[in-house]
């Protein structure tokens, strides 16, 4: 215990010695969350669009108004020829276009199937996916309306159109604020990046400066060294977690429906696994530079595989399997569960156990790798 404490004290002294580390550790996560919390937003509204009405009938105007008035699309230009659309999409001035061909109104009036065209800029695939979804739904509604009107005209037959209505209830986030989903995600990413990068140079730094040789000849045991190195990071990480959760809660007004205490406890569990990654990297690296590259190359795929924006269930089985070693995979379920869904221990214990297991394996590997030998 004494040995661990002396390492902890030494680590803190060293951290204090660098005047720039403090702002980096405590101010930058908050700044990042403030900035990125606003930026990470997939609410697609006012997609810049071009309208090309070649039909110019009441029906075509009616059809197009459905898109224009939906709030999802904002009309940047109305063009008279198909060719004119190219320019807007090429320059990126518009991301979608709606085209109504000549004869649209006549066909509809004559009971024949009419067609219309929706064009999306696939180079920005997330907006395109969402925009196309919205547009298809709007077009579907229009179709239904036309269909019902037509039925009404033949209502004399006695046939009554049936419509299955849906009473939609949105749980957990009734206003459908994208921010409520994204801010906890950004929070998890920031904590992950901070803690892995911080811990990854922890041991290798001593190897490089030669102080490790001096430590190895003391009776300190590998687990004492690892724990002593880790504790300051855990404390720093916990402080950071408190700060960023506070920003999420009070600045971004993301609700915390579950227990705040459980949330911090889970942050701790999460950081044990990320710090475990950092320390493991540190034990398998010879120089700080090597540790740094390894860290970057581990973090990059983890950012994408953890389920931050790309849903894990849409990935192929191989990548789904890989995602099991990504701590954010579990943490996102936990933090979104506690904050938005009011989930508690009964719902989240398996995620927490997975994180603890991941952390435990990484620590065991680090301690095994770190054999108190120079080779």
């Amino acid at each position, binding site marked *: 215990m004494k040995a661990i404490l002396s390492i902890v004290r030494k680590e803190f002294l060293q951290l204090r010695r660098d005047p720039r580390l403090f702002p*980096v550790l405590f101010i*930058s996560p908050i700044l990042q969350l403030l900035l*990125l919390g606003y*930026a*990470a*937003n*997939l609410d697609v509204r006012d997609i810049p669009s071009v309208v090309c009405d070649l039909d110019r009938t009441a029906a075509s105007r009616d059809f197009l108004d459905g898109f224009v008035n939906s709030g999802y699309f904002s009309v940047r230009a109305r063009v008279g020829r198909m060719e004119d659309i190219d320019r807007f*999409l090429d320059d*990126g001035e518009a991301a979608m276009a709606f085209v109504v061909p000549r004869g649209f109104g006549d066909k509809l009036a004559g009971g024949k*199937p*009419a067609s219309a*065209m*929706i064009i*999306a*800029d*696939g*180079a920005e695939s997330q*907006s395109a*996916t969402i925009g196309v979804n919205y*547009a298809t*739904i709007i*077009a*579907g509604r*229009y*179709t*239904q309306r*036309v269909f019902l009107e*037509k039925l009404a005209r033949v209502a004399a*037959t006695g*046939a009554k159109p*049936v*419509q*299955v209505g*849906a009473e939609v209830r*949105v*749980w*957990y*986030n009734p206003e459908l604020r*994208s921010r*409520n*989903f994204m801010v906890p995600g950004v929070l998890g*990413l*920031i904590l992950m*990046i901070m803690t892995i990068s911080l811990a990854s*140079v922890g041991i290798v730094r001593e190897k490089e400066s030669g102080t490790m040789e001096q430590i190895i000849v003391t009776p300190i045991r590998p687990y004492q060294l690892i724990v002593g190195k880790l504790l300051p990071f855990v404390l720093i990480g916990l402080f950071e977690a408190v700060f960023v959760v506070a920003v999420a809660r009070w600045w971004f007004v993301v609700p915390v429906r579950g227990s705040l205490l459980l949330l911090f406890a889970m942050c701790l569990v999460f950081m044990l696994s990320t710090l475990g990654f950092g320390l493991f990297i540190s034990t398998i690296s010879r120089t*700080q530079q090597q540790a740094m*590259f*390894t860290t*970057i190359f581990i973090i*990059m795929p983890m950012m994408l595989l953890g389920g931050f924006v790309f849903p894990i269930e*849409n*990935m*192929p089985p191989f*990548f789904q399997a890989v995602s099991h070693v990504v701590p954010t995979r579990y943490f996102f*379920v936990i933090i*979104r*569960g506690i904050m938005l*869904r009011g989930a508690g221990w*009964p*719902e989240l214990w398996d995620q927490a156990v997975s994180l603890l297991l991941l952390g435990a394996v990484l620590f065991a590997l680090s301690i095994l790798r770190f054999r108190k030998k120079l080779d």
Partner: protein
Amino acid sequence: MSLLSLGCLRPVIKKEFRQIRRDARSLMFMAFLPAFMLLLFGYALNFDVKHIPLAVVDEDGSRASRNLVDRFRTTEYFDLKAVLPRTAAIDPVMAREDIRAALVIPPAFSDDLLAGRSPSIQLIVDGSNAMSGTTAAGYAGAILLSYSQRVTLDALERRGLTGFVVPLDTDVRVWYNPELRSARFLIPGLMAFILMVIVTVSTAFSVVREKERGTMDQIRLSSIRPLELILGKVVPYVAISLGSAHLVLLLGEVLFGVGIRGSYPLLLAAMILFLTCALGQGVLISAVTRTQQVAFLIAVLTTMLPTFILSGFVFPIRNMPAVVQAVTYLVPARYFLAALRAIILKGVGLGAIWRQFLFLAGFAALALGGSAALLRRGETERTPRRRGRR
């Protein structure tokens, strides 16, 4: 700063290359990570909201209700994960994120249908992910519409009324990326991500390492100028990351058929301009830090998440609040990404993207000029030895 002499650079470049070659792991990472990420992007990541895990509470239990459930089950939008006995059973399952939507069919459903009354079902959507929530509700609405049409048409047919057609057929076309394939869309982002992070971090790191080891003063006394030293140290990383970027392009072509539609020289010019920006940012970071640890932290924090989130890579810039949009002007990846997408996917020329080039060049000039000034200041004014503090 006088002109750089290439003669001085050569030995430094050689030394760095040798060191990198010794470090097999880093080299392997640099070579294979981009390929792995591309596979990840190409096969694993997409924004599609499909396979939404769904639970069903069928309180009716009739043929009609089973029919409706089938409609949901047979689309790729929903995956039926659970059949629950009661509405109350939904909450715990949804809180665990095992399902994200639930369909509740009330007991009177089939009776209402038969009587020609319009029944109502309940759809519960997990709104925590706003995008997937909205889309799920939209899909469900569309399925219900087509189900209603089918039921009505069937009823009409039973009365001998045929010839009704679904009146409108929308033709959706996606330009530049017809299948909305993520690989196509994400390749430019991946290139920006890799180039930015590797070059900035390795630049900041290699300079601070010399500082931390105290070899910087020694170099200042030698004939190598600091900027030359930095360039020499960074050239190998620039070369390797350029290589990686090309590997990404090549794999994109071979695996995903993403060819470069525009001009290659223009693409190369954009990459080099962008690399200069990354390099400049790295030197700036090294100028304000003293230890490798802090340099690493700052470099990672200023490149990784901003390139991911603020560049328009994943999140559209036009959705961001004005203040945040203003900040994105400081993220060179923003311009690079726009230029790459335009060149690779749209095949447009300089005419459409000259603004991006201008911004990139401006950022590069600013960053390099700033770092050269900082380095020169360090050259003339001796850094005072730090005294012990009391």
